[in-house]
């Protein structure tokens, strides 16, 4: 806890027990001890603060705050009180109060270095950059130490970075910061590396690259030592900015001579080379080419430079570096882009890539290295290339199954690399169905055979042949997508499960399983798999979203708060909606539920303009050819889709929040005038939100229409629920329901006597809502999982539609509840009138009978839905997976067992989802009773 100050101080001795109690979590005793002490020593302020900490930690925030302010108002200057208050304010999440505290302390003890520096840090915690700057200078005046001066400079830079007005940064904050540093430079007072770094940062932000270069290359630059190659890297950056291509080229050359394996310098070497060629740059007649040394400015120089690097590698005893070999391919690519015939001097790409494979084919990274350069091959060379490589793979004699197998892991890696390259070239995709099935068979044989090399692998290690298994799974997915044959999907899942049994840490197996189970709407296995990935913190944001589809009835995990993340906003919105669907009007009223999640319908708190897409869409290993890979267009479209869906969901949530504001318990409604008690302000948000929903839905409809033909690659982002939610009719249905309150408010104002037209309108809305609901329910009917002719077929979309139906029913019931509460007083006042007039023959107003009809239709809709669920439950339970025939599936018994396990998982997951949906619906049926008017 807080520092205890000087040992001699008798107060310290008195306070010690309280500190100890607090440290040990014994807050009650700490409070008691503090009380005891305060009886004897009324002025021992610190004891009060410590008591406040005890109170805060036992949940008595208000008391704690009052007590703390008593002390704070005295503007204490003793260390103990100040530090204890700092701790308390931090725990209260009120860092701004710490600044007040030390402002007062500094006023009273203006020469204290300690209090001034506490004040600076307090400002830093709340981001008060301007005050930080002043505090830093004040500190420097008391104690002229360099760091304090530069604290002030840094605060200026922070002001520049955070300023809304960029002009202000460039004309005021940064120039001021620059002058402050220059002053120190002139006085030769620069001491630390960080000071030079800061100077560099300022100049860079100001775009003063020439000046920055002078600093880095000059005496000050000598201080830049902690980062490796710090000066060189900074110079390179500046040469690029300044388009100083000769220097850029010469420096790259130098660095490559030192380390011929650093890729970034090949890139800057080639970049600068071609700029120089384009500028027809020629070296000066005499003297150095430039300050960095010799410059290459012709293709022939570049070719010899690369070839010299290669020759050096060839001459080496040790294993050669990969850099120079890849640099040669890179140079060919760049020359080809410029239609420069000299590329031929470097050799034929096919031959060079073959040689590369011979040298490095046994490294797992060979595929990533060569993938980049496959575009150098002509399509008619693909088969030749692969055949050439295959010949260079040392395999044994073909066994009974006609497949030649590798004898060690190096040979295995080479063979695998050829398969990966073949896939990248599209050769696997070009195969017909039989060809693909044969390929799968071969890959599986290689996979199983390769397992022997990894018998001694630890559980945390991967198997050498895992990638064969993954590739076979990819081919299965290809077949499934192409032919629609669901058997391929089931076998794929089975194979991945088998893979996982041999290699329990393989994240790629888990990721693909997750993806496919999500597609199947089977969320039970998803939860286990996701937790076995052990994803944490930021990973939830980057991976989690790929799987958070449709997890309606699955507990969403607590997500890391990454404020502007698209995913975060989605999870939060979905979570709140889910809570409402599950609880509102069941365990508490809608109003209470909305209140408890502090949902504010007037406010849109999603930062739409700054929303960030943090998904890591590259997390899946894929060897698909370029035209089948995820591209930027997919990514953008997916973000657009996600944002649309989020908009629909968040507006729905806010509309429900609005609705809850309209509902009143009957007692309040009767005793107060509804139009004047402030709640009436709410309807004004309802209408604009409804319009927002309408326009978002039409935008969404346009979006789905525009893109209905374009699926994302399977290893790309999953589609949102958007298209299906729209198709199920649930969005439209919810909108219709949520429009009702507007009309009922009109009716409330008009009364029953003068509103025949309005009443007819409302009744018609009830009727059309019933029809819409029935339509949505009809779209849920059918078998979720069926076994036909020994084959298993899943229809996850039926489950999804059922979820939409339930969500819609929830919304409709909340609206109905509001309708009921509006109509009830109208009805009772009507009855009073009737009694007075003793007129028993008068007809029931249309709106009342309409509502009664509506509630009984709801009743029958719910019964229908429950009936359907019950039917599906018994259908699923009766399904015998054993009856599935494995004939014609070319699976071994062991493989078949894995496939069946997968089917069981899906079956059990569907069953559980149905049960949970059923439970919720039954609870909702109970709320129907309260709709009587």
């Amino acid at each position, binding site marked *: 806890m807080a520092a205890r100050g000087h040992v001699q101080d008798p107060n310290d001795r008195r306070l010690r027990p309280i500190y100890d109690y607090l440290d040990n979590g014994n807050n009650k005793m700490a409070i008691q001890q503090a009380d005891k002490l305060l009886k004897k020593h009324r002025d021992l302020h610190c004891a009060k603060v410590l008591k406040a900490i005890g109170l805060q930690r036992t949940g008595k925030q208000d008391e704690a705050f009052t007590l703390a302010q008593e002390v704070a108002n005295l503007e204490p200057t003793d260390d103990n009180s100040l530090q204890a208050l700092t701790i308390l304010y931090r725990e209260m999440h009120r860092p701004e109060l710490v600044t007040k505290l030390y402002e007062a302390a500094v006023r009273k003890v203006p020469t204290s270095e300690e209090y001034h520096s506490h004040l600076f840090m307090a400002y830093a915690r709340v981001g008060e950059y301007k005050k930080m700057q002043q505090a830093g200078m004040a500190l420097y005046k008391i104690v002229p130490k360099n760091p304090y001066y530069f604290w002030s400079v840094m605060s200026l830079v922070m002001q520049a970075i955070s300023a809304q007005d960029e002009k202000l940064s460039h004309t005021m904050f940064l120039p001021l910061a620059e002058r402050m540093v220059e002053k120190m430079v002139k006085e030769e007072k620069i001491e630390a590396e960080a000071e030079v770094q800061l100077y560099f940062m300022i100049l860079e932000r100001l775009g003063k690259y020439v000046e920055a270069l002078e600093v880095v290359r000059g005496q000050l630059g000598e201080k830049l030592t*902690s980062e490796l190659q710090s000066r060189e890297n900074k110079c390179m950056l500046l040469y690029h900015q300044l388009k100083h291509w000769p220097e850029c080229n010469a420096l790259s050359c130098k660095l490559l001579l030192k380390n011929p394996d650093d890729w970034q310098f090949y890139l800057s070497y080639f970049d600068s080379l071609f700029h120089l060629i384009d500028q027809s740059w020629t070296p000066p007649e005499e003297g150095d080419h430039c300050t960095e040394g010799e410059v290459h400015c012709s293709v022939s120089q570049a070719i010899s430079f690369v070839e010299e690097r290669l020759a050096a590698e060839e001459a080496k005893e040790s294993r050669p570096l990969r850099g120079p070999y890849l640099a040669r391919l890179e140079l060919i690519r760049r020359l080809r882009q410029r239609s420069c015939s000299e590329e031929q001097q470097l050799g034929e790409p096919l031959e060079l890539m073959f040689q590369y494979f011979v040298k490095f084919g046994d490294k797992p*990274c060979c595929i990533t*290295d060569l993938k980049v350069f496959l575009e150098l091959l002509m399509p008619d060379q693909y088969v030749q290339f692969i055949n050439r490589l295959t010949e260079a793979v040392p395999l044994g004699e073909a066994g009974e199954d006609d497949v030649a197998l590798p004898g060690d892991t190096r040979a295995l890696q080479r063979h695998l690399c050829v398969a990966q390259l073949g896939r990248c070239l599209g050769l696997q995709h070009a195969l017909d169905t039989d060809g693909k099935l044969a390929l799968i068979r071969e890959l599986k044989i290689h996979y199983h055979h390769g397992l022997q090399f990894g018998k001694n692998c630890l559980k945390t290690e991967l198997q050498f042949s895992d990638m064969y298994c993954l590739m076979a799974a990819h081919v299965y997915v290809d077949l499934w997508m192409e032919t629609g044959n669901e058997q391929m999907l089931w076998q794929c899942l089975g194979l991945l499960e088998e893979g996982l049994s041999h290699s329990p*840490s393989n994240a790629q197996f888990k990721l693909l399983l997750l993806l496919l189970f999500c597609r199947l709407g089977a969320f039970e296995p998803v939860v286990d798999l996701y937790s076995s990935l052990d994803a944490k913190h930021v990973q939830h944001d980057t991976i989690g979203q790929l799987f958070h589809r449709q997890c309606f009835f699955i507990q969403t995990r607590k997500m890391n708060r990454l404020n502007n993340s698209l995913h975060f906003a989605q999870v939060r919105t979905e979570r709140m909606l889910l809570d409402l669907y599950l609880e509102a009007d069941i365990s508490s009223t809608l109003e209470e539920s909305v209140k408890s999640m502090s949902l504010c319908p007037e406010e849109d708190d999603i930062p739409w303009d700054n929303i960030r897409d943090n998904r890591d869409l590259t997390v899946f290993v894929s060897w698909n050819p370029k035209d089948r890979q995820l591209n930027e267009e997919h990514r953008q479209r997916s973000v657009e889709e996600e944002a649309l869906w989020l908009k629909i969901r968040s507006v729905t949530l806010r509309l429900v929040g609005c609705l809850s504001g309209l509902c009143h318990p009957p007692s309040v409604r009767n005793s107060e005038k509804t139009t004047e008690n402030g709640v009436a302000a709410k309807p004004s948000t309802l209408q604009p939100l409804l319009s927002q929903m309408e326009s978002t839905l039409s935008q969404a409809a346009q979006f789905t229409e525009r893109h209905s033909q374009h699926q994302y690659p399977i290893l790309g982002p999953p589609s949102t629920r958007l298209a299906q939610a729209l198709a199920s009719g649930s969005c439209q249905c919810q909108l219709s329901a949520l429009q009702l309150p507007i009309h009922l408010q009109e009716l409330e104002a008009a009364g029953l006597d003068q509103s025949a037209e309005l009443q007819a309108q409302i009744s018609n809305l009830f009727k059309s809502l019933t029809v819409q609901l029935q339509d949505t329910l009809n779209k849920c009917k059918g078998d979720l999982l069926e076994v036909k002719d020994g084959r298993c077929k899943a229809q996850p979309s039926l489950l999804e539609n059922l979820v939409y139906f339930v969500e819609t029913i929830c919304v409709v019931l909340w609206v109905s509840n509001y309708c009921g509460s509006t109509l009830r007083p109208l009805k009772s006042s009507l009855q009073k009138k009737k009694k007075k007039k003793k007129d028993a023959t008068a007809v029931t107003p249309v709106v009342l009978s309409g509502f009664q009809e509506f509630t009984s239709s709801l009743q029958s809709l719910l019964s229908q839905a429950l009936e359907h669920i019950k039917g599906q439950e018994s259908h699923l339970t009766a399904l015998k997976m054993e009856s599935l025939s494995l004939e014609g599936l070319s699976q071994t018994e062991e493989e078949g067992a894995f496939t069946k396990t997968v089917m069981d998982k899906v079956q059990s997951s569907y069953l559980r989802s149905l049960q949970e949906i059923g439970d919720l619906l039954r609870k909702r049926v109970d709320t129907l009773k309260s709709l009587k008017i």
Partner: protein
Amino acid sequence: MLTMTTLRAFNCDDLFKFNNINLDPLTETYGIPFYLQYLAHWPEYFIVAEAPGGELMGYIMGKAEGSVAREEWHGHVTALSVAPEFRRLGLAAKLMDMLEEISERKGGFFVDLFVRVSNQVAVNMYKQLGYSVYRTVIEYYSASNGEPDEDAYDMRKALSRDTEKKSIIPLPHPVRPEDIE
């Protein structure tokens, strides 16, 4: 060695794309503030390797700490991990080499790291790189899933400033986590 990479300073955006490295059972993923703390205090010790295709291959994250007066000023490896497809290239060795070089420049006496006793692959690699077990820390790694906590080796390698290699003389007895500074 044949690393063939771009070695550059780790930046905040890398946190959003290092899944292929961190989805490894032995690689810990910390909360973002933890990484930011390292980026703020010891940026030179946080290096990432990038492949020509843009894939992140691996990274090292470390810090400098300890008292100079007691000859305990040293470089510490907090995290070192390489994605599966970029293993067996000597990348980890290269990254360690860089961290040692930075520690040399800072005048450190040694470099140290903690590793799970069961992580034989890593222990052997560090031994090959010149590290030796300085002490065993009992139950340093807490397990979450009901399995027993695991011991760590505190492994060290002396730097040139420690001419007599005093810093790496092994302790005779294991220590508990609360006893290490």
